[in-house]
Every structure is written in C-alpha cells, then in structure tokens.
C-alpha cells in the first residue's frame, strides 16, 4: 500500500488531494506536495527532535514563498525566544510580523496561577486563535505544543473534549495546521493527540549514538496519499531543516559525453582509451593501502593541470598528510593548493552526524564551485550512521553533483579478502565507473591489482592490471595470467625470468635437435652412399660375370662348328640340321 519514493503513476492519484507545500527541502518530494490542505497534521517527536523548527519552517515558507500568511501559537516558548531561535536560520520573524504575514502568540499557562472552580471551556483559546487568523487572513496555523494544556489545566476531560472540538474547528476554518506533540512512552504523543488527528502524522526522531546525532523523519500516516513508509534522514543546519528522500531529485541530469583523463595514461586506455566521463561518478574501492588515494590524487592532479577547481573531502587524513603521502609517489599537490585550484576539507566523520556532513559538503561545493569533487573515503561515514542512511545521503549528494555537472570520485575502504563489501555494492548502483583495487597475495608478497568492474557508456577493459606505486606515480602493467592464476610483483619478475630461461632452453633444444637431424641426415646420406657403392660394385661384378659366361658359351659353339666343319661330317646332317635350329634361337 505504501510506496516508498516518488513514482510517476502514483503522482496522478495523489494530485487529487490538494497539498500545501512546506518548502522544506525534500519533504515536499516524499509527500508529493506537502501537507494536506485545510487539515491538521500532527508532528511529533521527543525533546529536541526538531518539531518546532519543522512547524516554523512550514509557517515562514508559507508566508514568504507561497503567499499564505500564518499564525504561530506557542505554548512553550515566548515570542522573543522563538524569534531569537530562528533568526540564525535567516527567518526574520519580527519583519514578517511587521508585514502582517505572521502572527505569533505565546500562550502562557501557569498552573500555579490558575484556580479552577466549576465548569469551563477553552473558548478563550478559540477566540484568540480565530482573532489572530482573521487579523492577517491566515491560511496556516501552528499549535506548538498543545500538550502544554494538560500540564496547565487540571480537568482532563474538558481538555479532551475541547481538543476534539478544536480539530474540527480548524478544519471548518479551512486552515492547514501543524500541531506538535511530545513523544510518549510507547505512544506517539504523551497525551494521545494522534487520536484526534486522522489525516497526517509525522514522526521526528533524534538519536544520539556514540555521541553522533542522527535525525530521522517518518510519515506514520497520511490519509488518501501514497507516501514512503521509510525513515528518511533529515538535517538541521544553519539553513534550516532538510529531508533526504531516498528516491531523490531524479534522473533528469544531462549526460555529458566529454571525457577527462584519469591522470593515469594506462587507466585511460582501460576506460575506452579516453578516461572518465565529465560529470560522472567514480567509485574506487579497495583494501587499506591498495592505492585508492593515489588514484584519486592522480585524478585531482590531472584536473588541476587542466585548470579545473577541485574540492577534496578528507575523512581520515589531514590535508598535510595527504600532500606528504602523495609527494612520496611523485605527485605534488601543494602548488595546486597554493594557486587556489585545490581545496581540502578535512573532517573526522565522528565530529558531525551524517546530515551535518552532507550539509557541510553542500555548502562547501556551493561556495568553491569545483569541477571535480573527491570524497576520501566514503566508507568512513558508515561509522556515524547506518548503511541505509549513508546510501541515501550519498545518492542525494551524487544526484546533486551530477546536476551540477561535477565529476566525483569516491573512495571506499573494503576489508577482508573478499574485497567486495556490502557498502560498495550498495553505493555502486549510483556510480558510473567502479574501479576495484585488490591486493593479490602470493609467494609471501602482497601486490596490487586494478580492475574496471563497471563503466557505464564506454567500452572498457575487463582485464586486471598490476598496479605499481612508483616514485613517479601510479603505473599499470600487464599481469601474467598463467595456468596458476594471475601473477604479480616479484613472482611476476621470477615468472618473467623463468619464461626467458625457458625460452632460451627451448631454443637450445631446438638447435640440438636440428643438429641431430643434420647428423641423422648425414648418416643416412653416408649409408645411402655406401650402399650405392656396394651395389655398384656388386652390379659391376655380376655384369662382368654374365658377360664372361655369355662370351664363353659363344666361343664353345663356334669351336664346335669349326671342328665339325673341319671333320666335313655329312651323315649327321639332317639330325644336326634340327639341332642347329635350336641353337641359333
């Protein structure tokens, strides 16, 4: 039923219910317009929760910005006290009273001065309020805090009856009213004022944990209106009260396509060759000593070189420490500080609550007008608030920076070896580029590596680079990704040497084999030669033998023929004739 944040299709429904803007930064967003017009709203909370300031802001903004004069009926503080308290916020109550924009009425009830005898009602209060409303045509009314009636008067049943009548009367008058109430034990208000208010109930909470104050606002009830049930952090500073809606300003900021250098050439290469987008938000997370500050120092240095103003919020180190540390890696930031291009804002997270930090950051950014903002590290803000608050705060800050076109680099300290912390994951949804610095532990060494986990809107390298901190800054080198994983540091050097040796050995082996082959070929050739020699010799012998034999046989026949001719034999002529034919074949 309750929808946190602002969604388009709900604002249509909500638009039917007229709203009276409070002018309180953020509150009108989470309520889609403010408080219900012509109805009373109960604002409750403990002492010092800021309900008086909420009510006064509603009234003063009404008078100054929305042309709705208002009546402030105070049951606790005197008019002088009130004027003094809010003068520091720039609210000029006496001036507004003078201009008949506001009527202040201090209702003083001293129980010790009042004796009750018999029946009465609070018509005096009604007449007084009615008169004040009529005197300036008030559209808004604040009653702060009605519960004082209970301590000032004895007859509770009369008070309750009259309160019921008062709330009805306020509705009849059509004024938009804020009634404040002190928080009770297990109840929203000590006197159960909530039972008289059916339209809207807002709870303010002020918690101090470990001496750090955190303020929260919750919309307990808002009849006929979609509202967030979340608790919203809010802040009170010298500019008043501001609520930090979780779904904040929106996604309307322009997305510039200009690219700016990261200050590390190789990192630019990894990010599509041209670095970060102008106006984007970069998260650099890593374990202690992983080199987050160095990456941000490079970026700051590069920005200052371009002549851009940089504002660095340091939550853990003093500016002197940062300058000194960066000098050791060859980055001298001091000249930029001297030239007024770079300003450090150092604050221990625990000094202020989250809302004060946010407000201080806003203020500093408004004043310095930087093009680049660094928050180092945002994770330390966790120490002063819960994760949800930090995320809400950062979302708001990031939105603000984007609208201003300011490029922001946030660093985040992670712990442990998993490298990824919940905080990072939560913050990461609001950043455009996420660099992860990891320490790679092997062979008794810790070495640094850098990944680009994501980078919206650009092609980026998905490879890990070894990250070296040299005396001339950060260097990124390729890592060896072998079968046993990524290898860095001296293991990388060993690996390189080993690979060189292996290559050499390989070459030598090759040569050896080539020689063996040559030898083999030579042996083969020799063998072939000798075989041929033998063959030729044998062939020659055989041929000679054959010739001799053939010539021997011919001679024999010739001899026989010669002998026969000499004998002149004729008796054996016929027989000899046949035999002659055979032989001549």
């Amino acid at each position, binding site marked *: 039923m309750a929808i946190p944040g602002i969604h388009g299709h709900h604002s249509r429904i909500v638009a039917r219910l007229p709203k009276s803007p409070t002018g309180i930064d953020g509150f009108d967003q989470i309520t889609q317009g403010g408080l219900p017009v012509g109805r009373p709203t109960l604002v409750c909370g403990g002492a010092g929760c800021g309900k008086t300031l909420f009510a006064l802001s509603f009234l003063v903004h009404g008078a100054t910005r929305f042309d709705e004069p208002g009546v402030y009926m105070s049951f606790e503080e005197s008019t002088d006290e009130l004027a003094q308290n809010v003068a520091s916020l720039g609210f000029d109550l006496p001036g507004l009273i003078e201009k008949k924009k506001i009527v202040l*009425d201090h*209702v*003083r*009830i001293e129980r010790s*001065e*009042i*004796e*009750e*005898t*018999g*029946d*009465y*009602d*609070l*018509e*005096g*209060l009604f*007449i*007084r309020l*009615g*008169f*004040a409303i009529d005197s300036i045509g008030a559209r808004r009314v604040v009653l702060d805090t009605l519960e004082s*009636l209970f301590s000032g*008067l004895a007859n509770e049943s009369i008070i309750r009856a009259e309160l019921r009548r008062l709330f009805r009367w306020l509705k009849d008058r059509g004024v938009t009213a804020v009634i404040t109430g002190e928080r009770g034990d297990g109840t929203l208000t000590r006197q159960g004022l909530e039972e008289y208010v059916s339209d809207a109930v807002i709870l303010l909470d002020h918690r101090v944990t470990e001496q750090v104050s955190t303020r929260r606002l919750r919309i307990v009830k808002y009849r006929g209106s979609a509202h967030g049930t979340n608790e919203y952090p809010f802040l009170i500073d010298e500019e008043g009260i501001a609520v930090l809606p979780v779904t904040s300003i929106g996604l309307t900021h322009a997305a510039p396509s200009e690219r700016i250098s990261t200050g590390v050439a190789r990192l630019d290469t990894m990010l599509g060759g041209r670095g970060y987008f102008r106006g984007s938000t970069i998260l650099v997370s890593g374990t202690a000593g992983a080199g987050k500050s160095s990456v941000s120092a490079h970026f700051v240095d590069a920005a200052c070189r371009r002549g851009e103003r940089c504002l660095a919020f340091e939550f853990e180190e003093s500016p002197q420490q940062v300058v000194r540390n960066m000098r050791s890696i060859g980055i001298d930031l001091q000249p930029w500080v001297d030239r007024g291009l770079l300003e450090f804002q150092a604050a221990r997270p625990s000094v202020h609550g989250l809302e004060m930090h946010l407000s201080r950051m806003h203020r500093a950014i408004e004043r310095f007008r930087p093009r680049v903002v660094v928050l180092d590290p945002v994770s330390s803000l966790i120490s002063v608030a819960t994760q949800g608050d930090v995320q809400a705060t950062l979302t708001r800050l990031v939105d603000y920076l984007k609208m201003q076109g300011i490029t922001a680099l946030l660093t985040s300290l992670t712990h442990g070896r998993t490298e990824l912390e919940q905080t990072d994951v939560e913050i990461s949804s609001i950043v455009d580029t996420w660099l992860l610095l990891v320490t790679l532990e092997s062979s008794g060494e810790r070495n640094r590596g850098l990944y680009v986990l994501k980078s919206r809107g650009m092609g980026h390298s998905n490879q890990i680079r070894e990250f070296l901190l040299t005396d001339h800054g950060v260097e990124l080198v390729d890592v060896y990704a072998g079968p046993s994983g990524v290898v860095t540091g001296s293991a990388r050097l060993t690996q390189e040497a080993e690979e060189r040796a292996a290559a050499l050995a390989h070459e030598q082996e090759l040569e050896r084999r080539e020689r063996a082959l040559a030898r083999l070929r030579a042996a083969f050739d020799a063998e072939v030669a000798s075989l041929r020699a033998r063959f030729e010799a044998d062939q020659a012998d055989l041929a000679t033998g054959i010739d001799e034999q053939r010539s021997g046989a011919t001679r024999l026949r010739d001899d026989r023929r010669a002998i026969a001719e000499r004998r002149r034999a004729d008796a054996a002529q016929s027989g000899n004739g046949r035999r002659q034919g055979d032989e001549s074949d």
Partner: protein
Amino acid sequence: MQGPRQAYVLRLFVAGMTARSTRAVENIRAICEEHFAGAYELEVINLYEQPALATGEQIIAAPTCVKALPLPARRVIGDMSNTARVLAGLDLVEHT
C-alpha cells in the same frame, strides 16, 4: 476605592452570554458583595466583542476571572461556583 480597605479590580472574561457565563457573573458578584462590598470594581468582558483582549490578557478558558489589583495578578477559571476556591484562587482572603 477609598478608606482603609484595599481596592480590588476584577475582570471577568466570558464567551458570550451563555448560561455558564451568567452563572459565573452572578457567582463572582455575590462573592464580591459579601466580602468586599464597596471596595471592588468588577468588569465583565465579552470576548466575542473584544477578541484582542484574549491575547493581551492571556485568556484561554472561559469564564476566566482575573484579579488585576492588588498585585500579584491571579486568575480563576470556571463558573465560580465554589466560593472558597474563588477566594483562594484570587488571593482574596480578607486581611484585617
């Protein structure tokens, strides 16, 4: 307003002439007559007619009876039906 007796200045604020207002006026007048006859001044003010006075006199309840003089100023709210309480509340206990 003269003589040894102190002057009492009382103002009774009522919201219209309701039965309760009338009762309050009658009650306070009777008390004054009984205890301070000739030495008091009682003004009955209808807040509807002079609403600005409600703020000036710090009135929230009606009826409210304010003792302006002698100082210190005191006030009693209600229909003034309990005489003892009215006297105590307005610090009107007669001093000899």
